[in-house]
C-alpha cells in the first residue's frame, strides 16, 4: 500500500499550496478581528467571504494537481518542526489525498456559501465583524483538522474547532442561557478530546509516530504493533463521539442551536460534526484490524440514530428538529463506518452536508422572515409568502427523506445495504434499526415541511403581515444548495475514494438481496411521507390527539429522555458536592488547615501550663535545685 506522496516542495508545484489554504481563513480572522469594527461592514463582508472563496479555489487547484498524480497519490507538505526530541519529533505537516480533497471541498465550498448567506442573515447585528472573524477562525481550525498529517496537528484543529463553536454558540453572550450552551458544548467536546488524547499517547508509545498515514501503514503491516487495535480504536472513537455528538456526549448539539442559524448550518450540520467521521475514516487502518472497536462504533451509531430520530418526532422548535435529525444522520454514518463501509460514510457526509445545510439555511430564512419566531406550532401557510425558501426546503426534505432521484437516497440506501450485508460486521438487526430510523426521518421531516409551510397559517396577525421573502444573498445560496442536494447523489463518491477507503466485501449468500433492499428503502421513504401527510395535512389537530393518547411517552420524548437531568444529577452535582464538602470542607479546611491551627493552639496551651511552674516562691526554686543536684549525683553513680 505504498503511496506516491509528492512532496509539495518540488518545483512542479507552486509555493506550498496547502499551507496557503489553511492560512487564508486565519488571515480573515486576524483582519476582521483586529480591523473589522473600524473599517465598516463592506470591508468585513468582502474579507469574510472573499478569503473562504479563495481557499475554495486553491483547494480546487490542489484537487486538479492530485488528479494529475494518479488515484492514490497524496500531496505532502511539511510546514515546520514543532518540537524535536533527539532524532524524533513532531512537525506540522499537511497531507492532501482524495479523502482530504472531498472534505476540504465540502468545508470551503459549503463554508463559502454559508459566509455569503450570513452577510444577509446577520446584516443588522452589531457584532457583525466579530461574527465573521469567528467564522473564519472556525474555517481555519477545521482545515487544520482535515489537512493535518499527524494526529497532533489534527488535535490542534480538533480543539480549535471546539473553541470556535464555543465562541459562535455563545455569540449573543448577553443572554446567560446562550453563553451556558457555549460552555456546555466546549466541555462536552473536551471530554471527547480527553479520549482522543489517550488514544494519541498510546499510539505514540506503541508506534513512535503520530502521522496518520504511517499509523495506517503500521497496522496494515504483517507484524502487528504492540498495542491492541481495538483499544486505540475505542479511545479515538470516544473523541469522535464527543465531536460528532454520539450517544453519551450528544447533549451539547441540541443546545448549540442557541447560536445564529448560519452557525448551526456550518458547524452543526456540514463540517464540525463530521470531524469524528473523518477521523475514523482516515484511520480505517486501525478499525479494519479491530472488529471489536468497529462493532462498538456500529452499535453506538445505530442506537444514536434511532434514539435521536424518536426525539425529533415530537420537537416543536424548527432548529431542534433539524439538530436531532443531524444527530440521527451522524449515527447512520457511524453505522456505515462500523460495518467497514468507510467510503459510503464519507459519501453520506458529502450528501448530508448539502441537504442539511440547505435545511438549516432554509430554517434560517423562515426565522428571518418571521422576525425570530422558531416555534413551528405558530407557523403555517408560508409556501405562498416565501416560495423560494419553500421550494428549496421541500427539495432538501425530499433528499434527506431518501426519495429516489435525490442525493439522500443513494447514500442512505448504500449505508443500509452494507449494514445488512457487509462481511465486516453487517447484521439484519443493524439494517432493521437503520430502516426504522429512515422511516422516522422521512416522517418528521415531512411533518416539519407540512407544519411550517403547507398547513393553514397559525401565525399571529402582525407577524403574518410582516412576513417577506429573504434577500437574494440568502435565497441564492438556498437554490445552489438545493440543486447540489438534488444532483449530488449521481457522483459515485465511494468509487472515487476506492483505492483509499476500501469498500467491504459482501457476504455471498446475501448477494442477491441488494435490489430488494433498494425497493424497501424507497417504500420506507414514501410510507413516511404518506404518514406525515395524513397526520398533519389539516394542521396540528391529529398530532395533538395522538400525543394525548400516549401522554407519558410524549413527555419522555419531549424531555429528551431526561439525559441532561441525568448528567446533572449523576455527574455535575456530585462533583460539586465532593469538591465543596469533601475536598474543600474536609480536606483543606478541616484536615490540613485544622491540623496546622491545632498545632498552633497546642503549642500555646503547653507553654501556658509550663509557665505556671514559675510560682515566684523562692523555696520552690531551692527545692527544684536540690532535686537537680540529687538527680545529677544519682546519674553520676550510674555512669560515673
Amino acid at each position: 500500500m505504498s503511496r506516491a506522496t509528492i512532496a509539495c516542495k518540488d518545483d512542479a508545484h507552486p509555493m506550498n499550496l496547502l499551507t496557503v489554504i489553511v492560512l487564508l481563513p486565519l488571515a480573515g480572522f486576524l483582519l476582521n478581528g483586529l480591523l473589522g469594527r473600524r473599517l465598516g461592514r463592506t470591508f468585513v463582508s468582502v474579507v469574510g467571504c472573499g478569503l473562504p472563496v479563495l481557499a475554495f479555489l486553491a483547494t480546487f487547484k490542489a484537487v486538479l494537481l492530485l488528479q494529475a498524480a494518479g488515484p492514490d497519490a497524496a500531496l505532502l507538505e511539511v510546514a515546520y518542526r514543532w518540537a524535536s526530541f533527539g532524532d524524533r519529533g513532531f512537525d506540522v505537516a499537511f497531507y492532501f489525498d482524495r479523502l482530504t480533497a472531498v472534505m476540504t471541498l465540502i468545508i470551503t465550498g459549503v463554508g463559502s456559501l454559508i459566509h455569503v448567506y450570513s452577510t444577509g442573515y446577520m446584516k443588522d447585528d452589531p457584532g457583525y465583524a466579530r461574527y465573521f472573524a469567528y467564522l473564519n477562525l472556525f474555517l481555519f481550525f477545521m482545515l487544520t483538522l482535515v489537512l493535518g498529517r499527524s494526529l497532533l496537528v489534527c488535535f490542534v484543529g480538533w480543539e480549535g474547532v471546539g473553541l470556535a463553536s464555543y465562541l459562535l454558540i455563545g455569540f449573543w453572550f448577553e443572554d446567560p442561557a446562550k453563553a451556558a450552551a457555549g460552555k456546555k458544548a466546549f466541555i462536552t467536546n473536551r471530554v471527547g478530546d480527553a479520549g482522543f488524547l489517550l488514544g494519541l499517547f498510546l499510539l505514540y508509545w506503541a508506534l513512535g509516530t503520530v502521522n496518520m498515514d504511517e499509523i495506517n501503514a503500521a497496522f496494515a503491516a504483517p507484524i502487528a504493533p504492540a498495542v491492541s487495535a481495538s483499544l486505540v480504536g475505542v479511545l479515538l472513537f470516544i473523541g469522535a463521539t464527543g465531536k460528532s455528538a454520539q450517544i453519551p456526549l450528544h447533549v451539547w448539539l441540541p443546545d448549540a442551536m442557541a447560536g445564529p442559524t448560519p452557525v448551526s448550518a456550518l458547524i452543526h450540520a456540514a463540517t464540525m460534526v463530521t470531524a469524528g467521521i473523518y477521523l475514523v475514516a482516515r484511520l480505517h487502518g486501525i478499525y479494519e484490524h479491530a472488529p471489536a472497536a468497529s462493532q462498538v462504533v456500529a452499535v453506538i451509531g445505530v442506537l444514536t440514530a434511532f434514539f435521536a430520530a424518536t426525539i425529533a418526532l415530537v420537537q416543536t422548535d424548527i432548529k431542534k428538529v433539524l439538530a436531532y435529525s443531524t444527530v440521527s444522520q451522524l449515527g447512520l454514518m457511524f453505522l456505515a463506518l462500523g460495518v467497514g463501509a468507510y467510503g459510503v460514510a464519507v459519501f453520506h457526509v458529502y450528501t448530508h452536508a448539502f441537504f442539511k445545510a440547505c435545511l438549516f439555511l432554509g430554517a434560517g430564512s423562515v426565522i428571518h422572515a418571521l422576525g425570530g419566531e422558531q416555534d413551528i406550532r405558530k407557523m403555517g401557510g408560508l409556501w405562498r409568502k416565501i416560495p423560494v425558501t419553500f421550494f428549496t426546503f421541500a427539495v432538501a426534505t425530499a433528499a434527506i427523506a431518501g426519495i429516489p432521484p435525490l442525493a439522500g437516497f443513494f447514500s442512505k440506501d448504500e449505508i443500509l445495504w452494507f449494514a445488512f450485508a457487509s462481511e465486516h460486521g453487517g447484521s439484519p438487526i443493524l439494517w432493521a434499526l437503520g430502516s426504522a430510523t429512515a422511516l422516522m426521518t422521512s416522517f418528521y421531516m415531512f411533518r416539519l415541511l407540512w407544519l411550517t409551510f403547507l398547513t393553514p397559517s397559525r401565525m399571529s396577525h402582525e407577524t403574518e403581515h410582516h412576513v417577506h421573502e429573504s434577500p437574494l444573498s440568502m435565497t441564492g445560496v438556498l437554490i445552489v444548495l438545493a440543486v447540489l442536494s438534488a444532483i449530488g447523489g449521481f457522483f459515485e463518491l465511494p468509487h472515487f475514494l476506492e483505492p483509499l477507503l476500501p469498500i467491504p466485501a459482501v457476504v455471498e449468500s446475501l448477494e442477491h438481496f441488494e435490489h430488494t433492499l433498494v425497493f424497501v428503502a424507497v417504500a420506507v421513504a414514501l410510507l413516511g411521507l404518506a404518514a406525515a401527510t395524513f397526520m398533519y395535512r389539516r394542521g396540528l389537530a391529529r398530532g395533538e390527539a395522538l400525543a394525548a393518547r400516549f401522554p407519558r411517552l410524549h413527555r419522555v420524548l419531549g424531555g429528551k429522555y431526561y439525559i441532561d437531568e441525568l448528567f446533572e444529577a449523576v455527574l455535575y452535582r456530585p462533583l460539586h458536592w465532593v469538591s465543596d464538602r469533601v475536598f474543600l470542607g474536609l480536606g483543606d479546611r478541616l484536615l490540613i488547615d485544622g491540623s496546622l491551627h491545632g498545632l498552633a493552639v497546642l503549642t500555646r496551651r503547653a507553654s501556658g501550663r509550663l509557665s505556671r511552674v514559675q510560682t515566684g516562691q523562692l523555696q520552690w526554686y531551692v527545692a527544684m535545685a536540690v532535686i537537680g543536684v540529687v538527680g545529677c549525683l544519682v546519674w553520676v553513680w550510674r555512669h560515673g
Partner: protein
Amino acid sequence: MRVALALISCMLSLAGIYAMLGVHVVAVFQVLIYVGAVMVFMVYVIMLLDVRDPSFVRRYSRLLLPGIVLGALLAGALGISAIRLGAPVIQPGAGAAPSYLVQPFSVEFLREYWLHFELTSVLLVAAVVAAIAIIRSGRRSDG
C-alpha cells in the same frame, strides 16, 4: 533571735574544731569575721525589725514535709557518693605538711597568693557600693 544565737554557738564550736585541727589562722578569722562581723550585723537587723512579724508566728512554709525529705535525700546522696568515690581525687601533697601556725601560714599566704588578697579588697568595695545603691534606690522609690 534564738536562731541567731544558735548559729553563733555553732560557729564558735566550728572555730574550736579548726583550732583543734591545728589550723589556727582559719579558726581566728572564723571567729573574727563570721561571728564578729556577720552575726553582729544579723543580730542588729533582727533587733531592728519588729518581732510581731507574722513570719515569726507561722514559722514553717508549705514545703515543710517535702523540704525535710529532700534534705535527708540530699544528705544521703552526698554521703553515698562520698563513700563510693573513696579516696579524694587530689593526691596527698608531696611536700612536708605545711604548718598552719599563724606566722608561717601568713608568710606563705602573702608570698604566693598576694594577688587574690588584693582582689578580695576589690570585691569588698563592690559590695559596699552595691549596698549603698540598694539603700538609695529604696529611698527614691518610696520618697
